[in-house]
């Protein structure tokens, strides 16, 4: 039942206008960047994008005006600065609807979605003006204590990046792996799961790397689509396979300041002939 195919075919099949997509990874780590680039190459628009912490993924999609609704707790280039296209989209009133969360409330909304809860509660949002601008956030009193009730998240599709998939469709993560939650949270609350992997291996190889300590994270029953995208998280990092490419982020930060240089970036990095 798991479809193992190439990136382009999968994206054109499942990423349609108005699809509500949760993107895994966070803060320049583990973003399924090659899938984002393919979405841009296929010029898919009107997407609803959900991501806990957005960086280059979201800024690129904002730059090509692919997003109609965006849900996140932070969109920026950590350690570098603003995400210019995101910022401009909002400041210029482009029509992009931004549903802002706090990080913890969004984590709880992902968790609630995975558990089939319609809503969940969080206390750390008390006193935040987010409660005023989000009509779907509501102050409630339970057992004489105040909470903010927030809606669960159940996106149509999660796109995440992982280490390897075997021929049955089981997905493996590296051992001692950091930051898994940022991919697991969207994966478990979404209606479908698309995993981009560094490499395809046999079922036998899968069990061998588990014996070495790799983590069998998703079974074939969890995973709907798999595409091989070597180094597909680049320029975000996928430790311990590769580190984030800070130089590239700095280059991007510069080139995304003006429409002309942003177009140049798209030409050089995304529309260029596919070398896979």
């Amino acid at each position: 039942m798991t479809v193992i195919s190439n990136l382009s075919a999968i994206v054109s099949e499942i990423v349609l206008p108005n699809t509500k997509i949760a993107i895994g990874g966070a803060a320049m780590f583990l973003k399924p960047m090659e899938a984002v680039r393919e979405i841009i190459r296929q010029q898919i628009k009107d997407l609803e994008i959900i991501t806990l912490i957005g960086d280059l993924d979201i800024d690129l999609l904002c730059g090509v005006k692919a997003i109609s609704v965006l849900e996140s707790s932070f969109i920026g280039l950590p350690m570098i600065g603003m995400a210019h296209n995101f910022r401009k989209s909002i400041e210029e009133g482009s029509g992009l609807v931004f549903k802002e969360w706090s990080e913890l409330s969004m984590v709880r909304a992902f968790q609630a979605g995975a558990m089939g809860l319609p809503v969940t509660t969080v206390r750390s949002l008390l006193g935040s003006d987010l409660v005023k601008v989000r009509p779907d956030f509501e102050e409630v009193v339970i057992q004489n204590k105040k909470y903010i009730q927030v809606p669960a998240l159940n996106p149509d599709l999660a796109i995440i990046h992982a280490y390897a998939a075997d021929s049955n469709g089981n997905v493996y993560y590296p051992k001692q792996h950091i930051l898994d939650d940022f991919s697991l949270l969207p994966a478990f609350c979404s209606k479908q799961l698309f995993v981009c992997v560094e490499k395809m291996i046999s079922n036998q190889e899968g069990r061998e790397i588990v014996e070495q300590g790799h983590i069998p994270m998703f079974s074939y029953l969890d995973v709907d689509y798999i595409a091989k995208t070597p180094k597909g998280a680049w320029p975000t990092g996928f430790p311990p396979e590769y580190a984030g490419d800070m130089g590239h982020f700095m280059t991007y930060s510069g080139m995304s300041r003006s429409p002309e240089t942003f177009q140049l970036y798209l030409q050089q990095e995304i529309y260029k002939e596919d070398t896979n």
Partner: protein
Amino acid sequence: MTDYEVIDQLTVSLAREVKNGESCYTGIAIPLAVVSIQLARMTHAPDLDFYYGGYWIQPDLDVDLFTIMTDLDAFKEAFPKAKGFNPLIQLYRYWEGPKHTLDFGIIRPAQIDQWGNINNSVVGNYDQPKVRFPGGAAVGDIINTCHHVLVYIPRQDKRTFVENVDFITGKGVSPEWRRENGLEKYKGITVIVTDLAIFDFQTKDSRMRVRSVHESSTIEEVQENASFSLEIPDPLPITKPPTELEMKVLREKADPLEVRKFDYRPR
């Protein structure tokens, strides 16, 4: 007299707020906070339980923390040397649960006001803002779940020190509000360190107060770079400048790569 720059005063002053034996969290995206925690651990707070990026706990002191996150060999070496780890289920599991409240967090807001409210969302109208900041990520959550919060603002000016924030991304210090909401355990922001001075909220009405002025600046400069009138104590203490030892540890061990300058633009 020790030779130092303003950024060093900021880093050292922040480090001095850290108490030995406490537990704390800071994100990976604010290098100056990470450096100041390393400095504290290398000087007076060796037993700080420091969650680095929600992963390592008390990473090895000989490891440069910035390098861990950008160099894979350093990353692989760092794990075995940490006192603890938090690998499978992230820090999220603690938040608001019964087992742990961290003693403090460090944050760097885009704006702060005289009541200790912070704004990382927008300047102007929320729906059609003049400036759209990146968003708070966890800053609001940290303010309402850590016992207290340290703030640093690398460049204090009228845009960062505002009378009232346009948007409350993280709630201010108001003890009344915190009592009413059952959040009295979490005091909000207790100390702010900028490139000009150190501030707290130790007034009767819990309004921002100058605690000390750095020797590199004047109280006039401090007031000019705030959009509201600051409480100023009399006599006015001068911030203790970095000591020779602090500067030596900072330069040679805590931050040889000068990562702290990543989020600092000199005036």
